[in-house]
């Protein structure tokens, strides 16, 4: 053990004596390990972020879009209104809401803003009354469209949270907005809908009102939002049949979180590529170590000679140089892992990710750095051990 510490001390003394050279050979393993740890950490942290979002959103919302199975031209396909009842009676389904996006409506917070909002129209959705329940989104202000509004085709509108910000809507404010010149009273603001971000800047009105003011012919929606906490996948498969009942009106279903779920799976091929690139950086670093140490052996031949004259064996000399490589590998591994972890921390912090960094991976890559450094130090060490003291000391 004493000998081990002596070797470590001699190695550290040898390395600190040539600080710039040591720093340069340290760069290889630091960059290699740092790059691998950072890339894997960022990859996993970003996936972790998606996973945490998924947990928040739930994975049981199904979206069914109308699809004309006969391929009718010119007309927007619709889902029959009574299909809502049929879908809601399916076992496992807890809530169903239909929506219909009304086209060619210019929505204005005030008349002077017409030019802008003609260029960037705000979507207007006729919606069922239970949209907040189905989307599991609360109101941030006021209330949603209710049965009274529906029964009386009231010109009551709910706006999305981003639109409320855009319009400068104050909580509880008595406010109207203009839809193609018709004033609607704003009765509430819906919170952000993470699974359907387009709703954040939309205007919601009742189907009856839409039918009266905007000539949508009937109250058939174009889209259904279905909440099915159990057997979600099965329900999604059943919905097209339940909607069409063998008729021409069809629907195509999707589960929006499926996409997120797929994205949240750690991309193994990307990880493998990253590891390969990092491994390459480590090997290049290793070649650098071997190169610099080989030159160092020549430069230090006199030191090697005197150590041999003082009784140090060939093995001791080899071990001394191998320990220098080992120290470089260990320091490179530690600093590389720290640098990589720092990059992951910074990226997670700046992008609001949950930082995920696996300790075994940190330790594992640091050990790879040690292994590469030691392997790189083998040749110079053997070269140092083979030096003949008589040749290096240049006697009289």
């Amino acid at each position, binding site marked *: 053990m*004493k*000998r081990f510490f*002596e070797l470590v001390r*001699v190695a550290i*003394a*040898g390395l*600190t*004596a*040539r600080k710039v050279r040591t720093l340069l050979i340290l760069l290889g393993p630091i960059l290699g390990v740092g790059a691998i740890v950072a890339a894997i950490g960022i990859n996993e942290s970003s996936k972790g972020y998606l996973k945490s979002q998924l947990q928040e959103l739930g994975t049981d919302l199904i979206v069914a879009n109308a699809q004309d199975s006969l391929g009718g031209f010119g007309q927007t396909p619709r889902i029959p209104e009574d299909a809502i009842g049929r879908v809601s009676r399916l076992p496992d389904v807890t809530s169903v809401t239909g929506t219909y996006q009304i086209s060619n409506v210019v929505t204005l917070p005030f008349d002077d803003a017409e030019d802008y909002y003609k260029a960037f129209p705000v979507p207007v959705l006729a919606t069922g009354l239970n949209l907040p329940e189905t989307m599991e989104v609360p109101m941030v202000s006021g209330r949603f469209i209710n049965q009274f509004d529906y029964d009386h085709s009231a010109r009551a509108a709910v706006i999305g949270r981003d639109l409320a910000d855009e319009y400068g809507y104050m909580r509880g404010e008595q406010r109207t907005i203009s839809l193609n010149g018709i004033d609607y009273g704003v009765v509430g603001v819906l919170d952000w809908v993470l699974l359907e971000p387009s709703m954040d800047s939309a205007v919601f009105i009742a189907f009856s009102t839409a039918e009266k003011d905007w000539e949508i012919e009937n109250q058939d929606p174009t889209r259904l939002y279905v909440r099915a906490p159990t057997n979600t996948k099965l329900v999604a498969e059943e919905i097209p049949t339940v909607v069409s009942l063998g008729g021409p009106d069809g629907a195509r279903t999707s589960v929006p979180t499926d996409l997120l779920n797929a994205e949240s799976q750690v991309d193994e091929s990307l990880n493998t590529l990253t590891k390969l690139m990092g491994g390459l950086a480590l090997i290049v670093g290793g070649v650098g170590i071997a190169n610099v140490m080989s030159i160092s052996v020549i430069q230090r031949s*006199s*030191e090697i*000679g*005197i*150590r*041999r*004259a*003082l*009784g*140090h*064996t*060939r*093995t*001791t000399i080899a071990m001394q140089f191998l320990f220098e490589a080992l120290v470089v590998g260990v320091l490179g591994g530690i600093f590389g892992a720290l640098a990589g972890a720092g990059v992951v921390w910074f990226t997670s912090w700046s992008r609001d990710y949950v930082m995920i960094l696996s300790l075994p991976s940190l330790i594992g890559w640091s050990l790879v750095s040690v292994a590469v450094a030691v392997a790189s130090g083998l040749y110079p060490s053997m070269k140092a051990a083979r030096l003949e*003291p*008589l040749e290096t*000391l*240049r*006697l*009289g």
Partner: protein
Amino acid sequence: MVESLLSLESVSRIYGTDVEVHALHQVSLDIFSGDFMSIVGPSGSGKSTMLGLLGLLDVPTKGNVKVKGVDATSMNDFQRSRLRGDAIGFVFQQFHLIPHLSALGNVETALLYRGLSPKTRKKKAAESLDKLGLGGREDHRPVQLSGGEQQRVAIARAIVTDPLVVLADEPTGALDSENAENIMKVFADLKSPERAVCLVTHDMQIADATERKISMKDGEIVQDLIQGDKK
């Protein structure tokens, strides 16, 4: 009692395989305890080869090198290195101090890998430096020391292990005359009843200052002269 510390028995050293160079031819020599001697000769006379063999840095092509009667020729590198570290102290013309180590660190190097605690190593090294009049210069690096001081650090390093023989190769070659004279006094003082001091030089003045002078020519010893007490 005077005993043979180092001995060469009919030693020959031939370099090269295709073209053979006979550096030493059938040389026999005994270095006794208490010897203060010199090996002198012109360039190419074989004195450096002799130094390498006496210092166990090289092995003879023929013959034996013995340390206190123990044959070192048949030893492996590990055993020979250990014996060299224990029995021989080297001093070189160019000092050969390790530049990044302090004076203390350089002396301590000779005590490494001997199972000594760092504290003991430091203590012994400091004592050795002190003996050479370098107390207080322990932390100085070689570049911060004069030539004479560097050589004294090298001598401190050579004697810190308490070797049987101190072998010095042109120890005053890189020094001015005043420092050279001082260093010669140091060498004369190193001699003890248990230890021998052997200087290898081409400088007759240095050789004359020793008690026993071995003259070499063409790989052979031509004279082994006892010169009386020169101290």
